[in-house]
């Protein structure tokens, strides 16, 4: 039994003084072209078109690194941009409790009601929002990774972008292009889940919340289907274990994207106890369930992806989302309504509020605005739900139900949690994955291919882990990673093993950050190229 947190990765310190003699200067620098960052850019274009705004996006294009289900509460987005393209309102819904062979319909928990919500592909929505942001005057810069915060006298004065054209050993190749300083009066971090700079900023500026952040890993696929799916489906239970000691919190989602496509995925909390658990492989198993198999029969898998979701909720929010020169929003800060499985509307709203604070010149007003916004009440109400499921599916469900009914007044205390990496894991649970058949179920490398990943091989590894480590920890990482980045290598006389990192497979889901390592941004333009996720 081991705890990943006992083997921390080499320290990373993404801060620096401005040094570039020819920096790029903007009024507002936004890191991340996701719903939070783009909402901020759009709002700035509306409120203060005279301000220069740059949105830095590490993916090849906007949308390349955006992945979600997604069923979105449309209100905040409509308020910001009016009508936006989607796959329409949720046509109907069902929640099932699965066993290996059966599916029992259960009443939809109130937190999962989706009337009036719309189905979108977040990747597509991101691309559309980026066009709106640019129409409003923002400059969106894809293939640009922000790798450090520029700090001057304990004030954030911008970000440094990553170098390009370094080789495997960090040497400068013929194509070497050094990163630049982007000086900004206000830096808005909208990096998304497991944001590298956000995590470091929270530590440096003492912004940590009541609880540590915890994550779930979501692995999803997009299928072209032979028959349209007419409702939004969620499942609980199989293939996850329900007993408390396994800590397998999660479930699956199956959403129709119009008539021809279906988005389906499995989300599992990363505090699980079984070191051999592989969310990727459990999703493959899920597809063999009669309920799911029938939906996919005659279809074809067209895209695959993986991304973590912050699940700490209200109690894991930073105690302040602002620091001198800096604002935090979206998933990077943990703004997700876990029981409702919704974060996009919160990303949009926090992005909007961050923009308003930036435009006003008074960054401290951001925290006040958050607290008086409906965001605060919404998240506070469900603040203990995730922790309840530490008691397993049944008791957890009952507790969660009670919490919902009382709108968060029960239980009165705030429930604490443990970081994912501090949870001990056990081996030998003996769960077997089905051998992939290449038509319905697939191996990890085939999946990575379908993420559109074309990461340049000859670059330094962007993943920080301790090495060597105990074999069980290496095996944990091997199973955990949906993209087969890790491989257990040579064993040392003391029983520890080297862990080989095939960093070009990485789809930057963030799971390693939750489980004892750290994901940092690779060269801009690396990673997946999602278009439908």
């Amino acid at each position, binding site marked *: 039994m081991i705890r990943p947190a006992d083997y921390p990765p080499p320290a990373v310190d993404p801060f620096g003084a401005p040094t570039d003699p020819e920096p790029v200067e903007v009024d507002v620098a936004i890191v991340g072209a996701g719903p939070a960052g783009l909402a901020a850019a759009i709002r700035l274009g509306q409120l203060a078109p005279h301000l220069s705004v740059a949105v830095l996006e590490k993916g090849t294009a906007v949308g*390349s690194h955006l992945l979600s289900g997604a069923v979105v509460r449309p209100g905040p987005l409509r308020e910001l941009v009016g009508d936006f393209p989607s796959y329409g309102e949720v046509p109907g819904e069902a929640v099932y409790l699965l066993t290996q062979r059966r599916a029992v319909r259960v009443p939809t928990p109130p937190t999962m009601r989706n009337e009036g919500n719309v189905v979108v592909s977040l990747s597509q929505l991101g691309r559309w929002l980026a066009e709106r942001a640019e129409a409003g005057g923002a*400059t969106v810069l894809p293939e640009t990774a922000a790798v450090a915060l520029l700090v001057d006298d304990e004030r954030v004065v911008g970000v440094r972008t990553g170098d390009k054209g370094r080789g495997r050993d960090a040497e400068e190749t*013929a194509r070497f292009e050094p990163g630049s300083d982007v000086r900004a009066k206000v830096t808005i971090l909208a990096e998304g889940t497991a944001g590298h700079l956000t995590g470091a900023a929270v530590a440096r500026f003492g912004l940590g919340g009541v609880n540590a952040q915890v994550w779930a890993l979501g692995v999803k696929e997009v299928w072209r289907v032979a028959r349209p799916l007419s409702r939004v489906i969620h499942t609980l239970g199989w293939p996850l274990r329900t007993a408390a000691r396994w800590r397998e919190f999660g479930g699956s989602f199956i959403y129709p994207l119009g008539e021809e496509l279906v988005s389906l995925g499995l989300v599992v909390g990363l505090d699980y106890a079984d070191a051999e658990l592989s969310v990727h492989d459990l999703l493959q198993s899920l597809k063999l369930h009669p309920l799911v198999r029938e939906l996919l029969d005659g279809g074809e898998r067209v895209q695959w992806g993986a991304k973590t979701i912050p699940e700490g909720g209200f109690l894991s929010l930073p105690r302040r989302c602002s620091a001198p020169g800096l604002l935090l929003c979206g998933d990077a800060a943990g703004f997700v309504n876990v029981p409702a499985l919704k974060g996009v509307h919160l990303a949009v709203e926090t992005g909007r509020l961050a923009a308003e604070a930036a435009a006003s010149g008074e960054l401290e007003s951001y925290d006040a605005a958050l607290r008086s916004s409906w965001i605060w009440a919404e998240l506070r109400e469900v603040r203990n739900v995730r922790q309840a499921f530490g008691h397993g599916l049944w008791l957890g469900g009952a507790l969660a139900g009670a919490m919902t009914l009382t709108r968060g007044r029960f239980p009165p205390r705030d429930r604490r949690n443990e970081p994912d990496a501090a949870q001990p894991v056990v081996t030998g649970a003996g769960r077997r994955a089905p051998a992939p058949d290449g038509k319905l179920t697939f191996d990890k490398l085939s999946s990575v291919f379908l993420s559109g990943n074309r990461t340049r091989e000859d670059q330094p590894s962007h993943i920080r882990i301790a090495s060597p480590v105990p074999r069980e920890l290496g095996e944990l990482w091997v199973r955990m990673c949906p993209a087969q980045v890790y491989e257990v290598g040579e064993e040392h006389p003391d029983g520890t093993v080297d862990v080989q990192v095939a960093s070009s497979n990485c789809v930057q889901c963030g799971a390693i950050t939750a489980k004892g390592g750290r994901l940092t941004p690779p060269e801009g333009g690396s990673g997946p190229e999602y*278009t439908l996720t």
Partner: protein
Amino acid sequence: MKVAVCVKAVPSAATGAPLDPQTFRLDRSGDLALSEYDAHAVEEALRVRGDDGEVVVLSLGPERAGEALRKALAMGADRSVLIADAAFEGADLLATSAALAGALAREQAELVLFGQQSPEGNGACLWAAVAERLRLPVVSQVAELAVEEGAVRGKRQTELGYETLRAPLPAVVAVSDAINEPRYPSLKGIMGAKAKPQEVLSAADVGGARDSGTRVLALRPPPPRGERRRVENGSASDAAEAIVQFLVEKRLL
């Protein structure tokens, strides 16, 4: 030196570009990016431009191709010219070369560069057709380019080996991907690209739209790979013989 680079905006690999079964054209509704082969040509143009020179990128494509051209501007090109007109949908070699020649005639560049091939074209040789229309000398597959007084010297790779050719300027040169490593645009380059002039021309500006000389009749699935064979349990010599046999049958030996 004034250098014109003819480039093509092609579907970004990630989106994949299926052929539309109705029109038999590439379904280009996805993102367009600067063709990787053409990036080498842009890079070479930037290298030979010199301090007083100018690099113009030209392309024939839909209006959306403007974005892809911006990458060339971000790398350092000075201007872009896009020939965008519905009349050019599905343009073949004849129509494309005529349009590009029309646009190039307006530019009067000393050197016209092309990338080695179009990724979905396989062996396309636009440069030779354009050179013919412009009545300029042409050198292709150049892996090393040197500019001399009033001429260019190009070392090219062919199936047989290397040749060094010399052509007087103005000339058309197609560069192979071995010639250089295209630079990454700097952040300042990317941000500065938006301010650079991007001209859009219609068919009328380039002398009208030629009819295509070719037509697509039908799409069909490729012939099946043929039966798979397996050789097992024999001696190593038998196996080697079987392989040779197989290769001869397939006309690969």
